[in-house]
C-alpha cells in the first residue's frame, strides 16, 4: 500500500454539528443520488437543513475550509448510501469525531479513509463548544494513539481495532486485501452445499 493511504493523524480545523441520530438522508437527500457518479455531491451536503437554517454550520463562513467534523450520537444512521461520506469527503471532511456512529456509515467512511473516532459525551460537548468559540484552532485526530487534541487539552478517543489497523496500514481499501486470499475464496465456495449442489 502506498504511503499516502496511511492515516496516522488527521490535522485540521473543526466544524461542529450538534444533534443526535442525524441520518444519511439529511447528509445527502435521495434526490441527489440520481447520478452514475459521485461528482458534485459536495454542493448538496445537508442541503435541506441548510436551507431551513441559515445559521447551519455548513453555511457559516468561519467553518469553510474545516476538515474535522464534530458530531453527536448515532451519526449517519439510516440508508447505507456511501454518497453520504463521499459528499462529506468532497466537501473537505477528512476525519470525524463524535459520540457514536451508525455501523454502515462507520464502515463506509473507513472504506474511504475517513477515521470516525468516538469520544465520551461530555467531551463531545466540550469539543463542540470549543470549536464554536475558536474555529481557527486546529484539532488533531490521533488514530494511532486514539486521542483527540485541541489546544492544550487531549482527550481519549476510541476506534475499533480493525478500522484502526486498516487506517494505520493504509489497507482501508479492502479489495486488494481480499484478493490476496486467491483460490482460498473458491475453496470456501466449493464446500457450501448451495453452490456445490445439494
Amino acid at each position, binding site marked *: 500500500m502506498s504511503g499516502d493511504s496511511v492515516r496516522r493523524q488527521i490535522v485540521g480545523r473543526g466544524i461542529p454539528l450538534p*444533534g*443526535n*441520530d442525524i*441520518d444519511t*438522508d*439529511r447528509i445527502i*437527500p*435521495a*434526490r441527489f*443520488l*440520481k*447520478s*452514475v*457518479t459521485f461528482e458534485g455531491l459536495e454542493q448538496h451536503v445537508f442541503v*435541506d*437543513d441548510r*436551507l*431551513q437554517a441559515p445559521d447551519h454550520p455548513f453555511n457559516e463562513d468561519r467553518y469553510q475550509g474545516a476538515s474535522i467534523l464534530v458530531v453527536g*450520537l*448515532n451519526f449517519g*444512521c*439510516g*440508508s*447505507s*448510501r*456511501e*454518497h453520504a*461520506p463521499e459528499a462529506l469527503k468532497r466537501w473537505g471532511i477528512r476525519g470525524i469525531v463524535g459520540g*457514536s456512529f*451508525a*455501523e*454502515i456509515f462507520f*464502515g*463506509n467512511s473507513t*472504506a474511504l479513509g475517513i477515521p470516525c473516532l468516538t469520544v465520551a*459525551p461530555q467531551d463531545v460537548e466540550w469539543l463542540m463548544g470549543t470549536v464554536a468559540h475558536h474555529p481557527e484552532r486546529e484539532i488533531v485526530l490521533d488514530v494511532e494513539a486514539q486521542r483527540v487534541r485541541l489546544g492544550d487539552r487531549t482527550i481519549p478517543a476510541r476506534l*475499533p*481495532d*480493525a*478500522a484502526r*489497523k*486498516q487506517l494505520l496500514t493504509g*489497507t482501508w*481499501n*479492502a*479489495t486488494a*486485501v*481480499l*484478493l490476496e*486470499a486467491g483460490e*482460498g*475464496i473458491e475453496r*470456501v*465456495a466449493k464446500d*457450501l*452445499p*448451495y*453452490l456445490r*449442489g*445439494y
Partner: protein
Amino acid sequence: MGETLLDKVWRAHTVKMLPSGQTQLFIGLHLIHEVTSPQAFQMLREAGLKVRLPERTFATIDHIVPTASQMRPFGDLLAEEMTVHLVRNCQEFDIRLFDLNSGRQGIVHVIGPELGLTQPGMTIACGDSHTSTHGALGALAFGIGTSQVRDVLATQCLAMAKPKLRQIRVEGCLARGVYAKDVILSIIQRLGVKGGVGYAYEYAGSAVEAMSMEERLTICNMSIEGGARAGYVNPDATTFDYLKGRSFAPQGGAFDRAVAWWRSMATEPGATLDDVVTLDGGSIQPVVTWGINPGQSVGVGDRIPNPAEAPETDRAAWTEALTFMDFKPGQPIAGTRIDVAFIGSCTNARLSDLRAAAQVARGRKVAKGVRALVVPGSQAVAAAAEAEGLHVIFQEAGFEWRKAGCSLCLGMNEDKLKGREICASSSNRNFKGRQGSPMGRTLLMSPAMVAAASIAGEVVDVRELLR
C-alpha cells in the same frame, strides 16, 4: 454447548482472518440495483478487475423507476440514464438482470425471497440498508456501501467483524388488527434506534414462530432501523414451505437434501446468546410514529409524549421532532389529519400486505382531499393481486394502482410529498425529507392502518373498521 445460526453461517463462509482482525467472509448471494452500483462498476473498471462470480450476482431496477407508466425511455432523463448504465454494466460483466419486461422486476428485497434466490444458511449482501430483510429465511444478510459492492463484485467477499447476537423473543398471540409492522415498531420503540448497533437480531418466540414468511420479512426488514445490521429468523417448516417450488430454489430430491442442511444451520437449544429481550405480543397495539425516526412512536390509542419525560439523551431529539412535525406533547395521535396515503415499500408491499389493506378499503371510499396510492413490491405481487381482484377494490375506493418500485418510500421517482404534506405510510423511514419534500412529514404504520387512515382522512384505529 450449542451454536447459533450466526455462528454456523459465519464459520461456513469464513475464508480467513484478516490482519485487521476482521473476517474475510464469502458472500453467497449478491443483489444489486441502479443507485449504489454504477460507481462500484466504475471503480472495478478503473482497477482493471472482473466480477469474480457473475452467476452469484443478480440485478434489478427499483429505486428510480416511475410507477405510473414504465414505458422506456423514461420521461425523467436522469432515471433513464441510470437504467441505461445498469443494463450496460450487467451486459458487460455478465450479470443476470430482472428488468422491466422480465415479469420479475421489483424491489430488490421483495424479489430475492420471491424468486427463491434467498435461502437459509446463505450470506447475502446488497448495497442497500434493508438487506436485513432476507434474514427472514434464515440467511445472514447485510446492507453494504458502494466500496463494499465493489469488494463483493471483485472478490465475492467482504471484510467484516462478527456481530454480537441479541435474541428478541415475542411471545403470545397478536390481537386482531395488530400486524408484524406493529411488532417491529414496538421493538424499535423499546430498544431504540441505536440499540442494535454491533448486534445481529435473532427474532424468536411463539408469536414469531406463528408468523407467515411475509410477516417475518417485514420484521427483519426493519432490523436496521433499530441499529442492527442484520436480523434473522431460524428456518423452520414455514420457511421450507415458502421456498418449495420457487424458481431458484432447489427442486426435487435436491430440495429435500437442502431442507436437511437448512435445518442443521438453525440455532440449537442452549446456544450462547449475548443478550435476550422478551416482549409480550398480546399487549402490542397498532403503532404510529409521531416523530422523525422510527423509534419515535406510540400506540394508536396513546398521546404524543412530552420531551420533558424523555430520557436525558433523547430530550433534544424529541423536541426537534415535535417542532418539525408541528405536534404538541399530550395530543392524541389518533385524529391527525393526513394528505397522502402510501401502501408500498420493501417493508409492506407483498401480497398479504395488500390483502390486509384491501380488506379495510373494500366497499369504502378514500376521504376527500387525500391522495392514496398502492405500489406493489414487485411485478409478481402485482400480478397475484390483480388475479384476485385487489386492484379493483383499491381503484373503486379511490386509490391509484401503480406499477412495482420503491416510489414514495424515498421519493426518487416522481412520487413525492409536496410542501408540508403529512403521509400515512407503510414504509420504514420517517426521516426529515425522506419522502421527497424537505418539509414533508411521514407517519409510519401498518398497511391496514394506512388504508384506514386514507378512508377516515385522519389517523384512526384500524380495529374500529375491522369490526
